[in-house]
């Protein structure tokens, strides 16, 4: 059961609009710094950026952007959502994030994934069908660098290292590193095997169906002799003053995005019915602060999450809708979720001895 929860804000560097005008890429880059500052001001715990290499996204040089944000903020932790480890060099990644961690005074963290988007493979000269092997070996090296320095390592995906020390060196044990998974049970077991917390990327369908994955994760940790580790959920959404406003604003950006994705992958455009279903019982966290807070609390029950990350940007969304989401997430949703969790904890304490829920 969840009693404490952290809130993260995720951006894929989506280019927004402002009064009907599409922002330029450089404007979007600067906006992200302002949004991270706003996230800090409203009390959110983490600000994380993705890694994409396509039109409409400016989050290609994630650590550079995070470094900029680091010097403009003081408390908020800075992470990724997700870093495509398969096409990164783990040594380079280590250097970037040890530097970020130094610069931000210990606020750096990472979520590592196999491949949520595929553009980095041809761009950096990798074969898509190798993604599994690339990820496995690179994770092995990256965790070794974080956990045993100097590092000796040998593999097939890059040149070997012999007694190598990197600088700046990370704090002992490295920075908080999560594994992002999209539903593959094997990735869940891998996160447990490395003793890394699990970030569930749930972008469609009923989130409850991941309960089995959470169970699998806990069982795997147990089998590897490790203590329980945090589980997080990455979700898409928008918070506005009313449910209707949120639903309409999100639909205007979501519908063309999913239509485009469908064109690339071979499925038909989303229907309004399907959208309404995603709002009501599915993976979208779109609504008023109360609606979104209630849905998050439901996730703490169903999925035992102790971290909830909201991806608040989606192509073409007006800048003020983004700002409003961040503000309401920090000032209304987060406190409301904590309040509801505290109430539930009280209820539990007041249960007579011997009473059971399950």
């Amino acid at each position: 059961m969840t009693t404490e929860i952290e809130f993260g804000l995720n951006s894929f560097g989506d280019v927004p609009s402002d009064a009907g005008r599409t922002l330029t890429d450089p404007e979007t880059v600067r906006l992200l710094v302002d949004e991270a500052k706003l996230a800090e001001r409203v009390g959110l715990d983490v600000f994380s950026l993705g890694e994409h290499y396509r039109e409409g996204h400016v989050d290609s040089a994630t650590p550079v952007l995070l470094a900029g944000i680091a010097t403009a903020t003081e408390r908020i932790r800075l992470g990724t959502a997700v870093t495509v480890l398969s096409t990164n060099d783990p040594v380079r990644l280590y250097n970037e994030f040890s530097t970020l961690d130094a610069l931000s005074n210990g606020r750096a963290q990472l979520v590592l994934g196999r491949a949520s988007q595929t553009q980095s493979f041809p761009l950096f000269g990798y074969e898509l069908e190798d993604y599994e092997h690339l990820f496995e070996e690179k994770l092995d090296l990256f965790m070794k660098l974080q956990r045993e320095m100097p590092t000796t390592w040998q593999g097939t995906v890059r040149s070997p290292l012999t007694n190598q020390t990197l600088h700046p060196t990370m704090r002992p044990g490295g920075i908080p590193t999560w594994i992002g998974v999209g539903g593959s049970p094997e990735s869940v077991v891998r996160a447990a095997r490395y003793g890394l917390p699990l970030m569930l990327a749930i972008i469609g369908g009923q989130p409850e169906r991941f309960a089995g994955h959470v169970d699998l994760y806990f069982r795997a940790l147990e089998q590897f002799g490790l203590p329980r580790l945090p589980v997080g959920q990455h979700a898409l959404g928008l918070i506005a003053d009313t449910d209707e406003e949120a639903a309409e604003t999100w639909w205007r950006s979501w519908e063309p995005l999913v239509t485009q994705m469908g064109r690339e992958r071979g499925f038909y455009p989303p229907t309004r019915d399907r959208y309404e279903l995603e709002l009501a019982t599915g993976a979208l966290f779109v609504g008023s602060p109360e609606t979104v807070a209630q849905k998050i609390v439901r996730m703490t029950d169903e999925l035992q999450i102790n971290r909830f990350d909201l991806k608040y940007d989606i192509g073409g969304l007006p800048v003020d809708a983004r700002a409003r989401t961040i503000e309401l997430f920090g000032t209304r949703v987060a406190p409301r979720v904590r309040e509801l969790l505290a109430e539930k904890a009280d209820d539990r304490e007041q249960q007579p001895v011997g009473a059971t829920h399950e």
Partner: protein
Amino acid sequence: MSEPTPSLPTVGILGAGKVGTVLSRLLLSAGYRVLIAASGDPSRIALIVDVLAPGAVALTAAEVAREADVVILALPLGKYRSIPADLLEGKLVIDAMNYWWEIDGIRADLDDPRTSTSELVQDFLPASRVVKAFNHMGYHDLDEGPSAAGAADRKAIGIAGDDDAALTEAAALVDAAGFDPVRVGTLRDSVSLQPHSELFGANLPAAGVRDAAARFSSTERGREVAAARAGAPALRPR
């Protein structure tokens, strides 16, 4: 978990990922004995099977192919040539695979409108009876969607194949899993269940699946497939 019903065929599933574990669950709860494999040693998926498909038996792919009466293919299509073809002789093989370039890489051979990918699979398994099924519905809809036969708004799965008896057996399996089976034609016609077709991703009741299959030839994709097929003969690698 229910005990397997002895009169039912034993189902083997190749692939213990998102789709393989969901189909295992559905068929286990319908009373089938389910054997499941990934690419490697069964010990690697023991925990996954235990938690996500309790009751299924984890074996090697060869063991599953040998021991099962019916085998469902739930592995990446790009790896279809690693299926133990000789062990599947004479069996019903249900192809739930799709060409998904993000996993399979860019493969012209799997993306040729002249040939359905299930025809490629049938060619690779010449002594098996291949039926396409369970491919067009997203795994989360498969997971959330099953309901009892006759239920209002029961969701349907399009199936396609060349052998009538095989289609009947496959239909029984789809029905047992919790969906109305809808025949949409031969393996050649199964392009209408593949990516780029209206049915791909569809989570509809039987009438919706039937209608979408019927209008396939008049859709943009249907015309593209017809035009490609009217031209040069398809390349079907052996």
